[in-house]
């Protein structure tokens, strides 16, 4: 597929707003005050699941620490969309996956896939509708699923279950963030 067509398809599918990272809690409120549209019917086809898994793994690849697939992010994303998001987001997500299908995402090599995602990221910034766009959804759910999973959290941060004290400290070179 020609690059121009890729751009066109990616641009077409973007139907949501790009908002700066709002606090998650803000999302909760918006979620709570939106008209309640039952989203229980949401599910993905096998191909869609594969696309989700490949994108999640590109966002958080396996390195010397586990990657998105290792900690079950793909299934987490589908479950979260079903349980915590409503019809507009479901539609936005499915539209995004459709566009990925149109650019034959699964047939591209890793570099090409990265290229598509970079483009997607830039195009997402131009969106002004109210529904969260596909890229934002898949990115936020990948990061949430990964960094709060047991393996992902413990590999990424210094996990402190019970700090026992509160101390102002100086950061050591290369020190990881604490997670609680």
């Amino acid at each position: 597929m020609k690059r121009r067509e890729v751009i066109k398809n990616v641009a077409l599918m973007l139907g949501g707003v790009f908002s700066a990272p709002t606090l998650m809690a803000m999302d909760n409120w918006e979620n709570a005050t939106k008209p309640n549209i039952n989203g229980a019917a949401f599910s993905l086809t096998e191909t869609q699941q594969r696309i989700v898994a490949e994108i999640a793994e590109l966002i958080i690849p396996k390195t010397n620490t586990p990657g998105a697939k290792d900690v079950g992010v793909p299934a987490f994303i589908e479950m979260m969309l079903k349980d915590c998001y409503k019809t507009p987001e479901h539609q936005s997500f499915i539209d995004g996956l459709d566009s990925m299908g149109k650019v034959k995402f699964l047939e591209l090599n890793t570099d090409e896939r990265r290229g598509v995602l970079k483009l997607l990221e830039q195009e997402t910034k131009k969106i002004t509708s109210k529904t969260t766009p596909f890229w934002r959804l898949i990115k936020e759910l990948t990061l949430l699923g990964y960094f709060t999973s047991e393996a992902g959290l413990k590999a990424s941060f210094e996990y402190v279950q019970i700090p026992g004290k509160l101390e102002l400290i100086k950061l050591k070179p290369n020190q990881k963030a604490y997670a609680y």
Partner: protein
Amino acid sequence: MNLNIKANKNNTFDAIVVGSGMSGGFAAKELTERGLKVLMIERGHEIKHIEDYDTAMQEPWDFEHRGKTTNLSAEERWANSRFWGLGSEEVVNHLTNDKENPYIEKRAFDWIRAYHTGGKSMHWGRQSYRWGKHDFESNAKEGIGIDWPIRYEDLESWYTHVEKFVGISGQKEGLEVLPDGHFLPAMPLFAPEAHFKNKMMERFNRPVTVGRVANLTQPQDIHIVLGRASCQYRSKCQRGCPYGAYYSSLSGSIPAAMRTNRLSILHDSIVAEIIYDEQKKRASGVRIINQNNMLTEEYFAKIIFLNAGSINTAALMLNSKSNRFQNGFGNESDQIGRNLMDHQLGSGATASIEGFEDDYVYGQRPNAMYIPRFRNWGNDKQAAYLRGFGYQGGASREGWNRGVGADGFGADFKQGLTKPGAWAISIGGFGEILPNPTNRIYLDAEKKDKWGIPMIVTDAAFVENDWAMRKDIIASAVEMLETAGFKNVTPYDRPTHMGLGIHDMGTARMGRDPKTSVLNSFNQVHDCKNVFVTDGAAMTSASCVNPSITYMALTARAADFAVKALKKKDL
């Protein structure tokens, strides 16, 4: 908890306390410690301290949805989940199921409820500030609402009494606008906050202090005997603290009352009505409905404390009709349910902070930074609105979720997010709302809940004063963050209703004149002196500081008065 109904002939006690939350717990403690046999009646299910904090020790990955509100929770807790984080599976099951306990929003009201042992004291943010002298005097000076029948001096020693028992960490500042209390050692301000504090003093002569918070930084004997230990700085307080390190009725007042062996607690029992004895011209007891089996029962006592939370207390009074009180219990003034106040919340500003890259924190501070009221204070005079606001907020280093809005993905991106991010700061205002008789709750004339009790209707909204103040909350936040040299200063203004401050109050106000108020200066119902109301319903104005220690101080003062009066046979 032992319930010894059989032994108490005719279900009779010295005192009945309705509600086991912040103020009810304190009433039970004060009354039992003064020798009274007390029955505390709680409409919700029992929660046992520590044992029933089922999520307290769970790890982040134990939560299936990792803290996000599910569609199901949002549907069941349609009001509670409007507040930040209360829809999360970390806490949601400890908040009232709004679908099963609906109320009618004539005008929308964000009513946050926790029907169980301890009430909202299990979930509160623990910010604890004394009122200032001005808070008791402004109504009279400005001709707003009615005058308080008491002054700061009447409550001063009771604040100390409450603070010692509760255990409040804070910094003495010597400010008239925010009187010092009896404090445990203060928690630290973080480096950028200390910078902000200095700048605010330098440029605006505005003090900034660390939050005054009901977490034990250094437990005293009075806490240790109750099994309360030092804070471990996990900042997961809203799940319930396994160390009893923050104050709630569950960790503090109820255990203290139990130690006297004079407290009985009845759970699952909705107080539906106050029983009035027309002959003796006093309340003789209450009628309850068991929330599970619908059975009703009556309990009797010499005095009754109403601590169901301001809205439920007003509803209970309105629902208690008799020959004497045809318009609701003690409602000659028609003020019950009216003057519903709260603090406006949800507006302020955020900024990113350059520098301080080496500064980090070990542990999570369950607390914030506080900027006391500076508007309409001292030489400041605002033409657009009366009263003022304080800010709560603070600085922290960004976590992995900064990655959501940032560009990038892949190995380096992943690696970068394992490091602490840049510092960012956020401050939000808590603004005083004035008493207004048309802001109210009332009972629906026809619709009943599943126990046959008339449904509560909320009918309140912000008025011009609030909107003008809100504008200034945002503008001043922006000005302060910019003045401190912070970057990307961004105002925020979340759409909200009254109620979101979770400081609902005023629905059975204190005053001198029975024609315009419901309670006298010792929180007695003017027209029925053996009934006391000491939750937020009693408030004649709202101040802009968090109210709970004031409710507790009023409660302790009224309990002391009640027991002395009983002994003198005045009641």
